[in-house]
């Protein structure tokens, strides 16, 4: 490689893509269960003890953090480009990117704290 300058774009794109895959696989069923099926009484929600045990499992904790982190990076990437191109704010490209990825990183940190407090 002759390039000296390292760009963040390839890494942001990889996170965006990974986030796209995991959210495509996992988000619909979660929203269906906790957003529709349990609230409308189609299915019985797990008891407090059951879901507590489930979420305390190390793999489940990891899954929550990965889903939140990658999902947020995915959304940040898309929203960054949509806001910038859709409203023609090319001049503020850096600020928009910083706001999007910054928020994603912050909320991911919140997710880590919440999961570790279980």
């Amino acid at each position: 490689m002759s390039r000296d300058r390292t760009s963040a774009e390839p890494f942001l794109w990889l996170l965006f893509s990974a986030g796209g895959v995991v959210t495509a696989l996992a988000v619909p069923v979660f929203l269906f269960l906790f957003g529709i099926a349990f609230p409308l009484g189609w299915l019985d929600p797990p008891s407090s003890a059951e879901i507590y045990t489930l979420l305390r499992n190390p793999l489940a904790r990891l899954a929550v953090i990965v889903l939140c982190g990658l999902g947020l990076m995915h959304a940040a990437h898309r929203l960054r480009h949509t806001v910038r191109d859709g409203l023609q704010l090319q001049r503020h490209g850096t600020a928009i990117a910083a706001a999007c990825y910054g928020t994603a990183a912050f909320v991911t940190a919140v997710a880590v704290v919440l999961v570790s407090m279980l």
Partner: protein
Amino acid sequence: MKEITLRVFRYRPETEAEPTFQEYAVPLRDDWAVLDALNYVKEEIDPTLSYRWSCRMGICGSCGMTVNGDPKLSCGTFLVDHAPGPITVEPLRNFPVIRDLVIEMTDFMQKLGAVQPWIIRDESDDDPHTELLQTPSEMDDYKRYSMCINCMLCYSACPVYGLDSKFIGPAAIALAQRYNLDSRDEGQEERLDVLSDDEGVWGCTFVGECTRACPKGVDPAGAIQRAKLIAANEAVKAFLLPRWVR
């Protein structure tokens, strides 16, 4: 003979500051494309109309125009498909207009050259009397991208290029991939310098309009995403591996 109205974009910089539209009534013939109608206008009605064309058979790539809002080769867009009209004919979008339907294409030409769309290869070990053979499957890897005729319809369709002309754009990346994927080529790293730039593949948001606009089925959108994956792999390698391993 039935007629159809062409509403043609006119821009004559020596006399007018702003473009206007001019209407021409042309015969509505089954076998006439928009280009035939423009040739009729030029020969029979108004010799001052300017536009580019050459082969009339969808291979030279010079007659690209915006027909009723869509980027099209005017030689392959038939009047009857747009009857009863009027048919609005404008220059390709996203390019500066020199005159009438003639656009300025220097920017595209520079980008095309920047990706070095030819086989790059150290030939010192090649036997000059032997062909470089390729299996059908190796040819399939790039054949689709080699169909590009540089007509620039994809640049006209691409909103990212319209918003930021520094973006290297669909056809240039597809042609870079055409050579990157060729088993005889060794130039991927050289092209990667241009492709992996922030104004290279990373500008693309995968709208996919380039692929829909392409008259030759090249699929530049797919080519760009594949180039992103290669560029991302190289970036990760460059980040993780020490310099001497690379």
